[in-house]
């Protein structure tokens, strides 16, 4: 043992003269680092209760609970996460996945409880709702920029090039390939917020799951459970589900509509038949349905499945209603619509074409011979523009125009066309005119953002070089040498005092006049109830031109049910389909008296 080895340990004493490492007493409160994963906070206004945090938590430490003052509404489940700190491991996966970005962490880390009584109600709290001293802390773990574990951008849909599509009636949207669909389906967090927003309550997360698992037969079964028009809906649905999608909050929603289309595109009619395997026994009761549109045929499908003999009366020569006559072929090819209709017909549903009730056949006749009647006649009476000269020969209604195009009748439009209105019918009319080679101008009373048409329709119309004239109130149409002189009064938007949506008010004297060959009026339409006999029309109740029904779509006459655009306020295909489904259940209940 050398002396050095003996002395060396005393080197420790050197430290006695150094500044101590110790934190001062009383212990200085050392806050956690700026990105410390401490206790949770939740912005409950931003949170929508989608439950992704609950889903990803490996400790089952998060519950979704109702919270006072938070209402369940479209796109918000009304639930909020409650965290059990007897389970949490502060891994912050819940924060990483939070699609709204409402859940975050603070750098607070001390929470003590005294251990008397039961521990069951301790260390459990709803962030953002319960008062905690860390609720207002700024620092703490937030999902770092550039770090996302979910995919927030859509898989791009292949759409025909503008130049190619603006004179073609071939379907412009190409649909997803298998790989694209699976990738898009993979983005879904399966929260189910969209289900309640869908009028038909389709099992959206489940069929997306079926796509992921490549089980399209199961997907078809899920689709037909609530919607026999999936093929058409997969193309033209107003997809309110996508607006409710959680991913919409920080990125782009899932293309639920295109995924539905992907399913239907990739199963043949035979596969649909075999995977649905609809079996039923006839129960001998007869139902009459007026109008072979989505509402009528959907009711027919579900009634047929319940064993009823269904006869559908259709005024036109083909079935499909507005899906066929209102929607141009480049959006919904007739073959695809026929695929839906043919499956319904294959269940034994009879359609009598070219029978207009009230004209070719009496309503009373049906009332006497059938056990129940469902009508879903749609809105067929165009609103008038109430301007001078609207009866001139070159002025036609949008519905008539689209009808003619569908039936192959030359709509006789000129080189320059004005379309009045901002709804989907107006867009369809404008873009269809474009495909006939016309220069199209859309004239609308309000601003672009006020247009009721789907955003993508407007965007696509713009891409196709449709001109938009907004804040223009039509005043008169004058004919001179085959030309129509269309005048409108430019307007300004005036905020309403009661908070209603801004109203266009004409600017005195600011009038523009342009010449057109054809003017298409598409400012809306109303139901035509002239087919109803007087006494029944008096019995049924109406409000704002719509029939009032109860939840099962039963009207004031217990034998008559109604649905579709003449009943619901949204007036789109998916609502009509849901009306048909509900009415079928309602009719079944009424007839079986349960």
């Amino acid at each position, binding site marked *: 043992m050398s002396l050095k080895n003996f002395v060396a*340990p005393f080197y420790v004493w050197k430290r006695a003269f150094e500044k101590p490492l110790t934190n001062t007493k009383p212990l200085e409160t050392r806050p956690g680092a700026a990105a410390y994963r401490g206790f949770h906070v939740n912005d409950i206004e931003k949170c929508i209760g989608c439950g992704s945090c609950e889903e990803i938590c490996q400790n089952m430490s998060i519950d979704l609970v109702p919270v006072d003052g938070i209402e369940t509404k479209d796109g918000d489940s009304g639930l909020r996460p409650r965290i059990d700190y007897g389970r949490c*491991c502060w*891994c912050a996966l819940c924060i990483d*996945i939070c699609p709204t970005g409402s859940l975050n962490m603070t750098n607070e880390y001390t929470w003590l409880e005294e251990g008397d009584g039961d521990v069951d109600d301790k260390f459990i709290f709803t962030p953002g709702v319960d008062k905690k001293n860390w609720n207002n802390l700024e620092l703490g773990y937030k999902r770092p920029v550039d*770090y996302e574990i979910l995919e927030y951008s859509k898989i791009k849909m292949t759409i025909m090039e503008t130049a190619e599509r603006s004179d073609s009636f071939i379907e412009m949207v190409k649909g997803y390939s298998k790989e694209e669909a699976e990738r898009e389906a993979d983005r879904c967090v399966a929260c189910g917020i969209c289900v309640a927003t869908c009028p038909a309550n389709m099992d959206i997360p489940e069929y997306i799951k079926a796509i992921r698992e490549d089980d399209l037969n199961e997907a078809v079964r899920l689709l037909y459970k609530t919607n026999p028009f999936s093929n058409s809906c997969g193309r033209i649905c107003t997809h309110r589900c996508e607006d409710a999608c959680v991913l919409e909050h920080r990125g782009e929603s899932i293309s639920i509509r295109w995924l539905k289309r992907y399913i239907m595109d990739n199963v043949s009619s035979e596969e649909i038949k075999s995977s649905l395997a609809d079996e039923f026994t006839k129960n001998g009761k007869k139902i009459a349905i007026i109008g072979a549109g989505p509402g009528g045929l959907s009711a027919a499908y579900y009634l047929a499945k319940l064993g009823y003999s269904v006869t559908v009366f259709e005024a036109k020569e083909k079935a499909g209603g507005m899906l066929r006559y209102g929607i141009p072929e480049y959006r919904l090819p007739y073959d695809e619509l026929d695929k839906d209709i043919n499956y319904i017909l294959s269940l034994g549903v009879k359609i009598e074409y070219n029978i207009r009730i009230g004209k070719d056949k009496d309503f009373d006749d049906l009332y006497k011979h059938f056990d129940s009647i469902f009508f879903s006649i749609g809105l067929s009476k165009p609103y008038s523009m109430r301007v001078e000269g609207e009866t001139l020969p070159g002025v036609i209604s949008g519905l008539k125009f689209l009808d003619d195009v569908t039936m192959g009748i030359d709509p006789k439009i000129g080189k320059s066309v004005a379309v009045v209105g901002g709804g989907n019918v107006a867009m369809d009319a404008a873009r269809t005119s474009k495909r006939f080679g016309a220069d199209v101008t859309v004239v609308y009373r309000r601003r672009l953002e006020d247009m009721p048409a789907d955003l993508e329709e407007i965007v696509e119309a713009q891409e196709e070089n449709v001109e938009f004239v907004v804040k223009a109130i039509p005043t008169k149409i004058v004919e001179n040498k085959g030309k129509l002189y269309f005048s409108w009064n430019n307007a300004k938007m005036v905020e309403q005092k009661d908070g209603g949506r801004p109203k266009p008010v004409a600017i005195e004297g600011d009038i523009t006049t342009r010449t057109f060959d054809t003017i298409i009026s598409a400012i809306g339409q109303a139901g035509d109830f002239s087919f109803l006999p007087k006494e029944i029309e008096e019995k049924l109740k109406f409000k704002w031109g719509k029939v009032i029904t109860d939840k099962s779509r039963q009207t004031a006459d217990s034998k008559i049910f109604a649905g579709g655009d003449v009943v619901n306020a949204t007036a789109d295909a998916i609502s009509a389909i849901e009306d048909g489904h509900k009415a079928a259940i309602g009719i079944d209940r009424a007839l079986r008296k349960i």
Partner: protein
Amino acid sequence: MFDLDRKKYPKIDDGKANFELYSHKYLKLWHGPQHPGVTGNMALELTVSGDEIIDLKTHVGYLHRGFEKLMERRRFIQCFPIVCRICVPEPDTNEYLFSAAIEELAGIEIPEKAIWIRTLNLEMTRLASYLMWVGGQAGALGLGAVGQWAIAHRDYVLDLFEEMTGARVYHMYMVPGGVRGDFPQGFVHRLEAVLQKCEKLIKDAKIVMLNNSVLQDRLVGLGIITPEMIDKFGIVGPNARGSGAKRDVRKDNPYLKYNELDFEIVTETDGDGFARLKVRFREMSQSISLIRQIVSKMPKTGKFHVKTPNPLHWKIPVGETYLKAESTRGEYGFYVATDGSGFPRKVTVRGPSYTHAVSLLEYLGVGVNIADIAGLMGSLHTYPPEIER
């Protein structure tokens, strides 16, 4: 081949020594689980004659949580918070290995910057773990002061981790696809400051420990691992390097960015506790040098995470792989098998302590003085949670 002279020891049947405890020649002693000299929570069942240990049995399982079972019912992303709990003082090795195994099976390539950050993280955790170990080893041999210094300095490294990853102990920083965040501003300067503090500490601790005659007397010749034993018992890491084996996963099977870094395998030839102490001291200094190299070579900008499939329904095709990394105790390995579902089929963790603390310690402990058994455990550097998982 290298069995001890067992003449004075009792007969062994079926691997068990047969003691006549009532002969009063032997005494049974429990060293742990509740004993300050035991690292972590494990127990040694000692049979002593006088103060010499004549039989030793390791008891583990006090920290058994069944990780491998739990991972079978967790999604891939849900496993990464749980794997770091397998080794408390050095969690990042687990995180890295699990993430890398998943990336290999799923065919994901992570960005350059993420690779560098991971390398840095592994070296920092190596430093922290060694600091903790120095404290334990010194404490077990009666040098409390070094323990105070080392653990306090480890805390500075933990502060760095807290700033970088958001947590002190369980960082949960490396996820399949990269890492969870970039460096905060000015981090490199604070890192350098801590490194300088640690360098000073290592210098001081070396003087106090390596030149200490008491410590030398106790560690020299304690727990000698001969070169033949290395493969016989599957000894890895500093324990093997203390016996002259030039083996280091970082050099042998380079992972992350270790092939771009300049370092040599540290070896000593004595094979006893003191040699292992020297190996670990030199590796601490080496680790500091590696951290400096990494920081200087690291790209300043770039992505640190690549998007993985939706974690809620991420499925990985059938496959199996084994990945390893050099932890402070040696080769740490993850065997991951998948079966095409959204959950791992099997994850097996190969902790180096598995062999060091059970079969090796049971062998080396025989013949050791009771007072030195804590020092022997320390010099083998065992962490119980990675034995029983």
